[in-house]
């Protein structure tokens, strides 16, 4: 398997909780990696650093197939080089934040089509074809003409996922993907992500404070405590009862 993303000795400052330190892992192509924590940890900061949205204080993130990411973190790089590096990175990744943040004055359809129109400006027929396909997969056709304010949280999250997937990214970041949404929306999210993982080898990093939620999607789970990795669980260890028992054991041991 080839690596879609590699984090090496990564240290990340956080907004709250202890900073991340010595984070090492490899995300394989097509893999769904879950990230959860015991105790207070700013998982969003870690996701943002991996996605190039936040500057790491040490270490490296290497994206497969992206040669010029260095300009993003190089103070001497020109504005033009930074733009180029940033553009290259954003086109490789999809990011769905916990706050969703669709553009309020655009319809669901225009929100989903926005990255495609901005980055490639293709003929409207191509935009329509790709956008309609995603809207259909995520059951958003009935609400395609609505503004985000009129949507439920589940529909907003599905629309945000459609927007994140429209450029066919290689890595998808999901920040608390299932919090406060209905079961149907959660099932649709999981099935669409699975479909993309199988079809185009999409790799996923999903972070959540609720280990149960992560389990529905991940094939490997990294557990953090105090900013460091304390366990990596995969295979049979992800069987629900064993997984939850292990999490409970870790919680008890770190509390004591």
């Amino acid at each position, binding site marked *: 398997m080839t690596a879609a993303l590699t984090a090496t000795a990564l240290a990340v400052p956080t907004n709250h909780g202890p900073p991340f330190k010595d984070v090492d892992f490899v995300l394989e192509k097509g893999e769904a990696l879950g990230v959860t924590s015991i105790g207070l940890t700013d998982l969003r900061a870690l996701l943002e650093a991996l*996605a190039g*949205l936040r500057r790491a204080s040490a270490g490296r993130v290497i994206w497969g197939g992206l040669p010029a990411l260095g300009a993003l973190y190089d103070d001497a790089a020109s*504005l*033009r080089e930074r*733009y180029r590096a*940033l*553009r290259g*990175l*954003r*086109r490789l990744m999809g*990011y769905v*934040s916990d*706050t*969703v*943040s*669709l*553009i*309020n004055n655009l319809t669901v359809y225009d929100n989903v089509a*926005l*990255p495609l*129109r*901005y*980055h490639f*400006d293709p003929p409207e027929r191509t935009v329509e074809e790709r956008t309609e396909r995603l809207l259909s997969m995520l059951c958003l056709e009935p609400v395609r003409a609505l503004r985000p304010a009129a949507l439920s949280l589940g529909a907003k999250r599905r629309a945000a996922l459609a*927007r994140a997937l429209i450029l066919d990214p290689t890595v998808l970041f999901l920040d608390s993907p299932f919090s406060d949404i209905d079961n149907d929306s959660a099932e649709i999210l999981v099935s669409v992500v699975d479909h993309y993982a199988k079809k185009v080898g999409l790799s996923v990093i999903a972070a959540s404070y609720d280990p149960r939620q992560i389990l529905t999607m991940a094939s490997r789970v990294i557990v953090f405590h105090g900013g460091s990795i304390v366990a990596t669980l995969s295979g049979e260890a992800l069987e629900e009862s064993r997984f939850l028992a292990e999490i409970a054991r870790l919680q008890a041991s770190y509390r004591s």
Partner: protein
Amino acid sequence: MSNLSSEITLKPDAGGPQLTLPSWFAPAHFLGREIGFVLTLFKLIYRSVASMFWERRRGRSLVRRVILQQVYFTAVQSTALTVLVAVAMGALLMHQASVILPRFGLPDFAEWLTVLILFREIAPLTVALIIIARSANAIVIEIGNMRVNGEIRALEVLGINLDRFIVLPRIVGMTVSVTLLTVLFCAAAMWGGFWTAHAAGLLESNFLLESLLENLTLDIILNILLRAFCFGIVIGAVSCLHGLWVRVASTEVPQQASRGVVHSLSLCFILNFVISLWFFTGTEV
């Protein structure tokens, strides 16, 4: 014990060390802050203009659409107000020039002075004031709310260059709007003002529309357009900058909106003064 009224306290960042300085330092501190603001403004204008070239293939149709929306909201929706103000100011100024100047033995200067004051000095500045009151506020509030709702962050995550997608269309739209409205203002003030004043019997018989047109030279037209162009860029950039300065709370939005208006007004008056002074040396009386 220190006298608090004679000291100012600087708070560079939350939780950082506080620096107490004597009161005589306050004007210098204010000046330094304003110079810093102007430099940041230039940087924003440079970045958005540079994005026209560096990112010229990105989202052309989207950027074009935002420019057209901005022109619609700023220029088209302000048309009636601009015409009304232009006709009223034109009629009043022509009346005063045609009546007062002959009393001082200067009847030949009436049309020339009208053109100089009404078109060169008043038209661009009045249009700028109308735009600041109507649209500058709106831009700050729009961008500020986008920031608070996380939409700006979402655009960054999507790899959308804010200088190109948010700032550039608003600066271009604002510049086009101020220029178009200034031309409209001049036309409405010239013909509307003249015929209104004429119909109301406010003009002396020797005050002629033809003389007004003769005095409207290419120099003056270029001067008017230059002012309108500069005002448009300044208003657009200041509004975007203040909108982007909103951080996390919705209470910051009205604060930044009012600062945006004050900064736009100040810079337009200063620019108007500088351009007037610059051109005044070349004016032949």
